[in-house]
């Protein structure tokens, strides 16, 4: 459904003109029931060419490896088995969302259904298809992770594949397309000035930086959410709440309260990627001591109380 928020006008036609035709989409296709099964069976037995298999949702392997927690309606066959057959025939396989990629929220807590991703179980390679699986072109499963995914991540991955412009070098070490995963959510964050001065929010709806107290992982999370923006103009940070690193395997079990930053001796345990701890501590202390009054006061309120000064040049 997130995909349907694409800002590409008439996104289905745009994909079609690039050569991407939907054989079957559960939310959009005309055909149901027997006709739909016929298409899936045709793909699975090789009589209908399948260029790209997109899977949304985790693979449910339980109970006891039977896959019966998710049976494909009308077929009596576990979806897990359908996916395995279809993946063997597909030229490329895309996991849409963190559940299909790594297991995601479906595998949280006691993982009641033995949920896993197509080629990962959390951070571990494996999953349904196994660590060594690759498509005929040599690509592993493409993990368009995120919970939800940004519609443009899906559209651009599909288009790049259709254009033949997508090789193993386009993926990061967790199988995510680098065009979005080589960015950090921190890039383009509108709270950057609060971050620089460590002027922190202490409760939901405060304007300050969410890293020190409210669990924000934008400095560690791989995605372009604050550059590309969501639904025309939004992002988690713009909505006033922490980045929970939803493109990463295991985001569903952070090991601490989602909206509270775990700390040791007042220092957040998880520091910005590529940043040595000593430098972070030193810079944080320095910037805190240098925080302008405006930034400090605005950080702890819902709306700006001190606007930036206007400089008028006097001649």
């Amino acid at each position: 459904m997130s995909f349907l928020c694409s800002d590409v006008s008439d996104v289905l036609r745009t994909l079609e003109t690039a050569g991407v035709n939907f054989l079957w989409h559960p939310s959009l296709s005309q055909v149901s029931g027997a006709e739909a099964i016929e298409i899936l069976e045709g793909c699975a037995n090789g009589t209908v060419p399948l260029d790209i298999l997109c899977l949304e949702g985790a693979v449910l392997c339980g109970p006891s490896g039977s896959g019966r927690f998710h049976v494909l309606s009308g077929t009596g066959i576990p979806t897990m088995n359908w996916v395995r057959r279809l993946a063997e025939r597909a030229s490329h396989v895309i996991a849409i969302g963190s559940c299909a990629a790594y297991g995601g929220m479906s595998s949280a807590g006691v993982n009641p259904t033995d949920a896993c991703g197509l080629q990962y179980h959390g951070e571990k390679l494996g999953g349904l298809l196994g660590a060594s699986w690759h498509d005929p072109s040599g690509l592993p499963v493409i993990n368009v992770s995120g919970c939800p995914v940004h519609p443009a991540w899906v559209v651009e991955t599909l288009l790049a594949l259709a254009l033949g412009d997508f090789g193993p070098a386009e993926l990061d070490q967790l199988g995510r397309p680098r065009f979005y995963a080589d960015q950090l959510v921190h890039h383009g964050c509108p709270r950057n000035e609060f971050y620089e001065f460590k002027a922190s929010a202490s409760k939901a709806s405060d304007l300050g930086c969410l890293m020190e107290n409210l669990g924000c992982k934008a400095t560690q999370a791989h995605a372009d959410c604050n550059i590309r923006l969501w639904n025309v103009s939004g992002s988690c940070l713009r909505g006033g709440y922490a980045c929970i690193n939803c493109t990463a395997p295991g985001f569903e079990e952070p090991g601490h309260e989602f909206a509270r930053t775990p700390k040791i001796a007042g220092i957040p345990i998880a520091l910005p990627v590529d940043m040595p701890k000593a430098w972070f501590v030193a810079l944080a202390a320095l910037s805190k001591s240098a925080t302008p009054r405006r930034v400090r006061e605005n950080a702890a309120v819902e709306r700006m109380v001190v606007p930036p000064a206007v400089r008028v040049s006097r001649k």
Partner: protein
Amino acid sequence: MTRIVVGPFSRVEGDLEVTLEVEDGAVREARVSSQLFRGFERILIGKIPLDALAVVPRICGICSVSQSSAVARALAGAAGLEPPKNGRTAGNLMLAAENMADHLTHFYLFFMPDFARPAYSQRHWYPLVRQRFEAMRGSGGVEALASRARFLELVAILGGKWPHTLAIQPGGSSRAVQRAERVQLLLVLREFRKFLEKTLFGDQLERIAGLGSLAALAGWRDARPAADSDFRLFLEVAGDLEIEKLGRGPDTFMSYGAYDDGDRPHFAAGVFEGEVHPLEQGAIREDGSHAWLQEGAPRHPAEGLTQPAPDKSGAYTWCKAPRLGGKVVEVGALARQVVDGHPLARQLVASGGGNVFSRVLARLLELALVVPAMERWVSTFQPGEPFCLPGEIPDGAVSFGLVEAARGSLGHWLTVGEGRIRGYQIVAPTTWNFSPRDGEGRCGPLEQALVGTPVGGRLGEVLVQHVVRSFDPCMVCTVH
């Protein structure tokens, strides 16, 4: 008798299978089956209560704000928090935006494409319907998708993104609306209104919302040709095929009350059976007798359990059967409007009960009723007043949160002990509508609505598809 298994269903959210016993060309018995079990209620056990805010919306990519609203309300109850007026208004706007986007998606992408099937190629309206509504190609669907994408910016401004905002908090909303942003919100609403008035209705929203009787509706329809708007085209198709004779439900309607206005909801809560009765939340029981879940007497959701038993004999779905005081009830836009007392909704139900026509009409009516209300809500924001209040969840609490999602009544029941979630039960709208038989053998609403539906011949199972989709099911939420 012949048995037909229908599935997978496209253009419904999630996995649905329906088994039909057909005799003399009509459905004699139906069994509705949810084929996916993820166990969110088990995933939540042992978690820190506030973490449910991040977990629960991820049940569903289409009802995400509804799930957020229900969990925030349950946590607010546990914390004894009352969100301030601004926070409540922001929450109402986000929920309404999701609900209206869903109504639009249902009409253009899920329901109407069935009339563009070749089975109807001889009807006089077919060429136009095909041009507007053919699945994945119709011009109406393309226009609706563009309008929907633009409209959901409302949630981006108020809550960062859709789906899965974390802005909806027990104490209100994490995103205070600044003075100038009220204009941005109104702009988004104006654009959506423009699409609805020009393309969907071909008339002012207030005129549609004011249609107070079946006679007024017929008069309005006949004033201009069917090609004038998508709504008129729908009325033409509906009249020609007499879809009001399809899919009669149990005719007991329930609403938890929609959009929290502080003292009372914008649309009233209650149960309608010829007249409105008060809603008794305590009278809800979930019956698992035909679900692949361990046996036990029906339980109130506050004491509910979810323990898989995949080999249980006599079971045919993962879905429990919720009942209200033992009754099978229908939920959704029609139920909301009937309970609230909209005169057209009341007449529709008086003349033909819950059916394919009245369910779809009620959704369109809600678009015309709610969008103007949203415009008014935006103007009530008080910049300078708080949006969110801090609060603590106590180490022990019993609470619940009830909201109206697009598809109907959604409830979460929460038990906290020693600072952790000890019990979490979710009863979603489609859990009500697509429930299986209960221990007394009473069929769920869709199971009842399918009985008598003609099957076979030139139309095949198309009429079954109309009945199923008239409920706008969300199977992902149903079992969760």
